[in-house]
């Protein structure tokens, strides 16, 4: 298991908690939100947001029930437990249609590479036009990213291989809302992604060293409030929030 950023700072929370809290806060005004495959942190952010900020948030996911209220978070984001307590049925294909129609408000996406324009790469790393590393494929991202109103990118790694000037291959690009990493929060600016805030355990120098494109100064990310941490621990007693850091 690699080191979890912030874990050494003894703040009572680290990157997994802060990332979930930051993403949950960003959902305060969302109407509909979609989480896809292997999306542990987003699932927790949705549940936290619904508990604390946005009880009317409508959550859509792969198992096909609208607005589920799972009693536990399974280790697969396709698990039927994520359909429990739902209020209606909607297939994944129909969720894609919803996004294609422009009716999806917020989507969560990630990328092995994320570049300054917000483009993500889940396809492959090429060198000199030759395939070097085959990645997973972009799942729904090529459709979702340009058609959802706002896409919230997250990435549990923050280094110069992940945050790059330009992705090797653009699997998807679109309407970026924010990018959340273990070190910082980014928002779109005039020249692409810019720093919005730096997490308490990171310095601007560290962020610069770990980012493949230039970044300016930014304030510190507001820490989680005790209530946010309490509810998050309640929602996620098994610490699935750390899976993406392993």
């Amino acid at each position, binding site marked *: 298991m690699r080191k979890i950023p912030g874990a050494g700072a003894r703040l009572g929370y680290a990157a997994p908690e802060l990332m979930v809290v930051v993403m949950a806060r960003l959902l305060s005004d969302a109407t509909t939100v979609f989480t896809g495959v292997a999306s542990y942190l987003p699932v927790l952010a949705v549940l936290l947001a619904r508990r604390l900020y946005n009880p009317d948030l409508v959550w859509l996911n792969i198992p096909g029930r609208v607005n589920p209220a799972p009693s536990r978070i399974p280790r697969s984001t*396709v698990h039927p437990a994520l359909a429990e307590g739902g209020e209606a049925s909607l297939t994944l294909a129909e969720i894609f249609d919803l996004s294609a129609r422009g009716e999806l408000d917020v989507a969560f996406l990630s990328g092995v590479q994320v570049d300054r324009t917000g483009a993500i790469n889940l396809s492959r790393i090429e060198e000199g036009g030759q*395939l070097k590393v085959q990645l997973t*494929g972009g799942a729904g991202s090529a459709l979702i990213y340009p058609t959802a109103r706002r896409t919230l990118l997250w990435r549990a790694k923050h280094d110069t291989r992940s945050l790059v000037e330009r992705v090797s291959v653009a699997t998807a690009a679109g309407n970026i809302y924010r990018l959340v990493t273990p070190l910082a929060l980014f928002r779109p600016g005039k020249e692409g992604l810019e720093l919005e805030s730096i997490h308490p355990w990171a310095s601007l120098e560290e962020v610069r060293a770990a980012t493949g494109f230039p970044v300016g100064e930014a304030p510190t990310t507001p820490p989680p409030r005790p209530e946010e941490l309490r509810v998050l621990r309640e929602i996620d007693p098994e610490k699935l929030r750390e899976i993406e850091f392993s």
Partner: protein
Amino acid sequence: MAGKKLVSLDEAASLVKDGDTLALGGNLLYRIPAAFARELARQGRRGLRLVKTAGNYEIDLLSRSGSASSVVAGFVSFEAEFGLAPGFRRAVEEGRVSFEENACYTVIAGLRAAAYGVPFMPVAELAGSRVPADRGFRRVPNPYGEGEVLTVPALIPDWAVLHVQKADLRGNGVIHGPLFEDVLMARAARSVILTAEEILEEMDEGELDRALIPGFKVAAVVHLPGGGRPGACPPYYEYSPVEVAEYLYAAERGELAAYLEKVRP
């Protein structure tokens, strides 16, 4: 007719010929035709083109076994602890398998075109994505307005191979829980093969409502309890991380043949 469709796994897998295009039901480790894929590998099928939105185990296995020569999919990976599908990844990197990477939605669009009997489906612009260019998706002029519209060609599988909870002797298939793309695959494909946890004599109204795979297009039904393992088939069984690890461990040690002999069906 009734009853003649019920065949052994061996017989059902024999229907698939080298070079066929197979749409595989389920999603990731849920309700996947896992045992059917193992049988195809055992029978040494070659040149298969696999169609899936998001998959892992059976894509990985058929890539390792040399059965698959190309894969049309949006996402091929295990989740969380198991990470990437290593056999698939290596097969692609070494050029043994061609990965026709799609967005999950363009797989759906291609299947819809097939299901509707038309040569293509228009889709929302996948702005900024390399997928349309990589796949050779073409644009047509919008006949009712400005600009051009992205299209995806019809994707017509020879077979939809689906693992379902229940089927009857006439081949009618019942799916409980998420449908994923199974129903669409059954419409788009030329013919359907079902493996089923249970064979029903009669269906109740709830089952009839979920009997979305009519038997008249089903060529074969296999009674195959556990046919989705190591994946899940709710409510019968959960997916087994241990069995997934067993597969990956054996396969990565080059012991796929022994694994296929051992893990039956």
